[in-house]
């Protein structure tokens, strides 16, 4: 899958980093930028980059190296300056995001946070004294879900069918869901456009920043950003008259109930779930219950066999 080029890296990612880290990252070649998936900063540990499937670091001359202990060591100052830049020096304005453990920045890139967690009763109140930051670079791969459209839109092409994308982590399920939303919302000569609602609990699908989707999710798509999946599906059903609801990583009992309600209302649900295959999925009680309701008619199984987004298998249940 294509990724982030150097220009985009310079424009959207580097402004957030402290000067020494920014300087090192500027030395990355175009090829590495295209495959860059994560940038990790851990206090007292070497700077880590996930490029493709491998971990690299950058040495003091800015050269990529697999010997991670030869890399630039991240200091407290680097973390402090980076978190200050990410939050626009306004951590108070990101209380909810910090409670959830990540901040989405302009461009839809997600920054995971780790540090000292402050509890209020049993609930996470906030996080302070940050020790690690993980930049996950948002990827937009247009038309990567094009081959799935004939399956999802069925024979007549007038309605979409309930589809479950089954995939282990880092196999491109979020990217495929996002592209499906875009393709369905744009429509084509063969498949009429749909009203789509994305319930984006973790702000990953649409990469919303201050509520505005940063990635192309199509002209007929509404995004419920940072909204719990089950509540979002019901809200969408009542107020946004969707034809398709798209959501990521279902797995809780309330998700199953909400999906059932959507299916009963005649709205198609396209969702993803963490699993390597159908057998693994069947072992989970909640998912077993969901599958037994026959709400989903189609399963798409992804793997990394030929890189992220590889369609391993398509199973029909109708």
């Amino acid at each position, binding site marked *: 899958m294509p990724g982030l080029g150097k220009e985009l890296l310079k424009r959207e990612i580097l*402004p957030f980093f*402290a*000067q020494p880290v*920014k300087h090192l990252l500027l030395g990355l070649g175009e090829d590495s930028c295209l495959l860059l998936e994560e940038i990790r900063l851990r206090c007292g540990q070497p700077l880590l980059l996930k490029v493709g499937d491998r971990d690299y670091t950058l040495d003091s001359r800015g050269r990529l190296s697999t010997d991670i202990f030869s890399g630039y060591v991240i200091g407290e100052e680097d973390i*402090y*300056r980076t978190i*200050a*830049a990410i*939050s*626009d*020096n*306004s*951590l*108070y*304005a990101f*209380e909810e995001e*910090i409670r959830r453990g990540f901040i989405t920045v302009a461009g839809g890139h997600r920054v995971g946070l780790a540090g000292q967690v402050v509890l209020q009763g049993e609930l996470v109140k*906030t996080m*302070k004294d940050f020790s690690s930051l993980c930049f996950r670079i948002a990827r937009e791969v247009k038309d990567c879900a094009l081959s799935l459209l004939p399956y999802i839109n069925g024979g007549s092409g007038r309605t979409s069918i309930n589809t479950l994308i089954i995939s282990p982590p880092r196999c491109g399920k979020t990217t495929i869901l996002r592209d499906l939303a875009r393709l369905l919302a744009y429509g084509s000569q063969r498949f009429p456009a749909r009203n789509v609602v994305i319930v984006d609990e973790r702000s990953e699908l649409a990469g919303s920043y201050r509520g505005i989707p940063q990635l192309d999710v199509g002209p007929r798509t509404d995004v419920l950003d940072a909204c719990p999946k089950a509540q979002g599906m019901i809200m969408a059903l009542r107020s946004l008259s969707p034809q398709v609801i798209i959501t990521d990583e279902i797995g809780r009992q309330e998700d199953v109930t909400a999906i059932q309600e959507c299916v009963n209302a005649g709205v198609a649900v396209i969702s993803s779930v963490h699993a390597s295959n159908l057998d693994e999925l069947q072992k989970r009680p909640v998912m077993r219950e969901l599958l037994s309701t026959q709400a989903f008619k189609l399963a798409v199984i992804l793997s990394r066999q030929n890189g992220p987004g590889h369609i391993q298998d398509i199973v029909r249940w109708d």
Partner: protein
Amino acid sequence: MFFKTMGIALIIGGFGAFGLSGARRFERRVDELKNMRLALGFLEKEITCTYTPLSRALDRTAVFCEKPVSLLFQEGADLLQAGEGITAGEAWRKGLKKLARDSSLNDGDLQLLNSVAAQLGMSDAKEQKKVFNLLQEELRMQEEKARDELKSGHKLWAYGGFIMGSVVVLLLI
């Protein structure tokens, strides 16, 4: 005789003006401390009630208050909006330097304002409220002290200048 009278008038006038300017500094410090306290109250509300990002909150506070107090907030806002990787603490300290050049605040007042630099923006709204409440309370105490100093110091400087001028004239004669 004319030149002698002119010289006396100039010496007494010069010393008197210097004394009046010193006295005016006491008044200005009280005004500036009060304005600073009100401005910080405004900034606190921007942060804790409306969660306005700091650069914009500082900008709005600069519009709300008068010069020279506004210099601190405007400089801070400009530096943060420039987006050159500067932290809020650094922007605040640079703003204080600019303020110090044009204001009547003393070193104690400026040190007090400097004490919040590291905490500015870098905690949740509840913590920010505590920081600003404490600073406002400390500024209120400084303001009371400044008022006391105004009562004694104002007269001393205002009359002292003319008296000093007269003494110099007498010594010269």
